[in-house]
């Protein structure tokens, strides 16, 4: 997946944090037919979040131009498409940490990252835990979850990425966000 670095190496995420401040015109009503086509692109990311999803590919699924897609997706779903994809990858990684014995390296590659370091750092930035700490915690919280449909349990673990990862990282450095717990391993 050669596009992966472009998705997560900072450029798109960094730009999106600036875009957040002026790009939210949530009350402007969007055409339901367009929304239905945007939903199709979102569904495709859901079904294969480990794959690379450059805007060009997503725009093709929705049948709109790339510029139109990025703007419309953000307006419809509240986050830029790449950040949405990131939430699905973290969700998937959390599920694999909880439910499988796969190593953290295997999980990193299975969920679409090209390097273990990027995965570990991004995972920690978003969830406040290292992958191994998350594995212990998720397994400790299992009782009772078997009464919910497994797919809903999984979706409920999706992180809420209201700010870009780099922005979150920056605020931690500046001390405006409480530092997350330290890595245990």
């Amino acid at each position, binding site marked *: 997946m050669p596009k992966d670095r472009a998705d997560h190496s900072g450029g798109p995420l960094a730009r999106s944090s600036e875009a957040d401040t002026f790009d939210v015109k949530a009350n402007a*009503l*969007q055409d*339901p*037919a367009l*929304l*239905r086509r*945007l*939903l*199709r692109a*979102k*569904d495709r990311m*859901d*079904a294969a979040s480990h794959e690379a999803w450059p805007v060009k590919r997503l725009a093709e699924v929705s049948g709109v131009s790339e510029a139109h897609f990025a703007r419309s997706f953000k307006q*419809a*779903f509240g986050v830029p498409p790449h950040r949405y994809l990131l939430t699905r990858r973290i969700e998937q990684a959390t599920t694999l940490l909880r*439910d499988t014995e796969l190593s953290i390296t295997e999980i990193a590659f299975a969920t679409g990252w090209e390097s273990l370091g990027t995965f570990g750092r991004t995972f920690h930035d978003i969830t406040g835990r290292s992958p191994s700490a998350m594995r212990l915690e998720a397994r400790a919280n299992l009782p009772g979850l*078997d*009464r919910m*449909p*497994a*797919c*809903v349990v*999984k979706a409920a673990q999706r992180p809420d990425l209201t700010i870009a990862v780099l922005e979150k990282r920056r605020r931690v450095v500046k001390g405006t966000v409480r530092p997350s717990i330290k890595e245990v391993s």
Partner: protein
Amino acid sequence: MNQGINVVGLYVDNQDEALAFYVDKLGFNVHTDVRNGSYRWLTVQHPEQPSFQLGLFTPGPPIHDEATAQTLRAMVAKGAMPPLVLAVADCRASYDRLKASGVEFTQEPIERYGSVDAGFRDPAGNGWKMIQSAPANAASSA
């Protein structure tokens, strides 16, 4: 059964399209299809569940003002409505059959803890999970 939940409705953008989907593709039966002017009360039923009707309703007048209707249509189209679950005996067989008939699947069958689930959407955007219960859990999760 004299007491209990009898009708639960979905919003759809087009009742004819919804009817074709739920009846021709999913195999539901029409329970009620009556009109009063422009209003159409349309419910369908799962063939094995005669006490429950699924309503297929369109947002709009006289129930909603146009702005409200537009908002509801947008919510459905972006998949923001609540989850729906269809219980099936054999998820993979149902998946093969529905997929062949052109149903838009959002997720292929996946086994989790012995249950198997897949996901699809109706033409309007309502999302369904199709779940085959794990044999051991059948008593508690049915």
